[in-house]
């Protein structure tokens, strides 16, 4: 063997020794973490995507798709909706996103897989804040996640996906970037990424009924985090309009639902002008797109139907879903409707034409 060739071979051996050593070390030290903790910023997204892929593989039609943040995830029962309307529904909402993130999830991943006829987008003021640091962080984490990069499928992302499939080092490299957290590896430190929800058929969050409980710390956190530096009319506005326009091009109808809120949630806004600006934001979207619109923001007079500031409890969820199902024909005809619910222990809701 020539000297140059021998040198190249030995260099390659040194190279491969380190690469294989790193892979072996990763396989020894990183066995216990479920794989979806690094693929998506929320485990719930991976869980739902598995179901969505199953629907796609089976070729099973989904006619009505629900998307939005945790409010929509907790507040709509797609099984009940399917039963009442005879239309196959799926709830693809997950915790944390604002409209920008919902837009990417819907337009780049979910809609092309499920090809629904109608998309129901749940929205609240938290989803409309262009300057929310928390929303921006979630958005960046979503766009930079391996899951999104692989699903959005350019060649580089697919190659990265392949590498992550075959190499444990590659798969867990993001966790290694937080060495102290990584070394401790407890549920708390791995945080939100690892919180897996109980997800039933059609993307239904399986939750136990609970009484409403007001936590001042949650209100403060909402006020400073997601609702901080409140500003509407920019990026989040454009995201909703883009969702409408792209869906229209694809022949899909969109319904916008202003989600129900508690008085304690409204108290998290620093001043009343913020909600006024949010309502103007909604009015502008409806005027610009002509989208079907349901206003459920003040559907409930009390907090009894909620589990916390902004998520409906099981009974509130079913009442809310029932009202959407009962008036589905009117909704899908492009009406603008107002939701009103009674204060019974098991509430009932109805939709009326908005004035």
């Amino acid at each position: 063997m020539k000297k140059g060739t021998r040198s190249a071979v030995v260099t390659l051996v040194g190279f491969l020794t380190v690469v294989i050593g790193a892979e072996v070390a990763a396989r020894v030290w990183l066995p216990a973490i479920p794989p979806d903790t690094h693929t998506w910023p929320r485990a719930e997204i991976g869980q739902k995507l598995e179901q969505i892929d199953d629907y796609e593989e089976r070729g099973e039609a989904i006619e009505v798709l629900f998307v939005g943040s945790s409010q929509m995830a907790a507040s709509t029962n797609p099984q009940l909706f399917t039963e009442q309307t005879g239309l196959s529904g799926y709830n693809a909402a997950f915790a944390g996103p604002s409209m920008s993130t919902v837009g990417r999830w819907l337009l780049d991943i979910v809609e092309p897989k499920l090809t629904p006829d109608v998309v129901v987008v749940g929205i609240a003021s938290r989803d409309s804040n262009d300057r929310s640091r928390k929303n921006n962080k979630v958005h960046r984490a979503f766009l930079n996640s391996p899951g999104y990069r692989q699903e959005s499928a350019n060649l580089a992302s697919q190659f990265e996906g392949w590498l992550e499939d075959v190499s444990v080092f590659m798969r867990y490299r993001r966790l290694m970037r937080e060495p102290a957290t990584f070394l401790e590896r407890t549920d708390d430190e791995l945080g939100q990424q690892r919180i897996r929800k109980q997800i039933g058929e059609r993307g239904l969050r399986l939750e136990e009924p609970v009484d409403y409980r007001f936590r001042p710390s949650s209100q403060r956190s909402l006020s400073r985090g997601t609702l901080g530096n409140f500003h509407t009319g920019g990026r989040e506005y454009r995201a909703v309009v883009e969702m409408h326009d792209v869906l229209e091009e694809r022949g899909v109808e969109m319904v916008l639902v202003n989600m129900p809120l508690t008085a304690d949630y409204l108290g998290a806004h620093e001043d009343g002008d913020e909600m006024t600006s949010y309502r103007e934001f909604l009015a502008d979207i409806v005027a610009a797109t002509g989208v079907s619109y349901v206003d459920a923001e003040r559907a409930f007079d009390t907090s009894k139907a909620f589990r916390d500031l902004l998520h409906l409890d099981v009974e509130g969820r079913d009442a809310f879903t029932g009202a959407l199902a009962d008036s589905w024909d009117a909704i899908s005809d492009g009406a603008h409707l107002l939701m009103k619910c009674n204060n019974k222990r098991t509430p009932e809701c109805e939709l009326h034409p908005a004035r």
Partner: protein
Amino acid sequence: VLFNSLEFAAFATITLVLYWTLRLRGQNALLLIASYLFYSAWDWRFLSLLIFQSLVDYVAGLGIGRSDDDRVRKRYLIGAITINLLVLATFKYFGFFVDSAIGLLQWLGLEPNPPLLEIILPIGISFYTFQSITYSFDVYRRRLPPTTSFLNYAVFVAYFPHMIAGPIQRANHLLPQIERPRTRPTVLQVRSGLFLIVMGLFKKVAIADAVAGVANEAFRMGSNAGSATLLIGVVAFSLQIYGDFAGYSDCARGVSRLFGIELTRNFEQPYLSRNITEFWRTWHISLSSWLHDYLYIPLGGNQGGKLITYRNLMLTMLLGGLWHGASWTFVIWGGLHGLLLSIHRARGGHAPRGRPATPRWGDVPPVLATFAGVSLLWVFFRSGTLTQAMDYLGGLFSFASGPVNLDHLILVLVSALMVLILDLGQRITGDHSVVLRWSPPVRGAAIAVLLLSVLMWSGGDAQPFIYFQF
């Protein structure tokens, strides 16, 4: 199109393959097309500005070269420099001057109401403008004959590996390389070029991007954070800006070497400097030597007595600060560096030219002191406003306790250790590709570590280089 993106890898590879199938004129034409395409990927609207400035300096160079009358030659030189600086002032400093004037008038109790004019900063303008000025100057000083080929001159200005963020090349270094036929690089040159690219990516991705979040978090929190967090933040930024800019320069040199064109070194292990003068001999060398040769020396350098020397140092560094950006934070940053340089000179300090000496154990205190001083001044460079900078420094020196993010601390320590190992290796051997000299198995292992580190920190959006904004 960033160096740390697959798009650039594809672009450079295709250009390189075509390039080595052509003869000199074809190679230069290809380089010009590729460079203009590269620039257009940022913003095609400013391509006309780039061509205009190239034409101005090309014509001025011909005018200077063809005349023996010193007054005519000087007129061409002043004309070229004035047009270049006017373009730079309009696009880079107009807003700054207007805002400063408004601030002054408001301070005087007046209520000015000037028209709003938002001017976009063309990318790379500070770099290619300074490079163009070297050409006019060098032709004027008869260090370089004017080029008669506009194609060659346009390639000199727009050459894509370095046009966005340097290193700023002297005309008498780069232009002759563009004008003469180039031989295919040897295996050794290809190997060292590729290694420089790997090293550059490592510095950018595994050092700068790795600690960027730590610095961002600290500067976002300001005095709301404890002093320890702010200290970690300022060290993180020192590492970030070095990794980011030195990484870019290494990539630029590596890519250019594959095209058979050598670019000058831009860094010589600056954080191993034992004093501020040595720091400026080793940090952003292409800019500091430009400022020395084209500003400090024409101002009189150190030939007019102590006070004149200090004045010249201050002026040079103030303008050097302003070169970085149209903001008072950069002016203060440059001014404070000028002050430190003046103090160092007044105390009889100097730093010999040429390759800096290998540090000894006894050099540890001055090296640490220089690093601490430079890092503190980075606070002005990194902060958006003077208020933010003062808030940060106030928090840092309040010695307030507060929680420390252990992840951040580990990242900064590991990054600092990597910088130290790389820089010490380069300083001791004087070779930026020192790893290639090691025995084959160690060399292979070292390259694997560099590439695995890049992979570990890759994925997600490629972060733009900090110096692109200048």
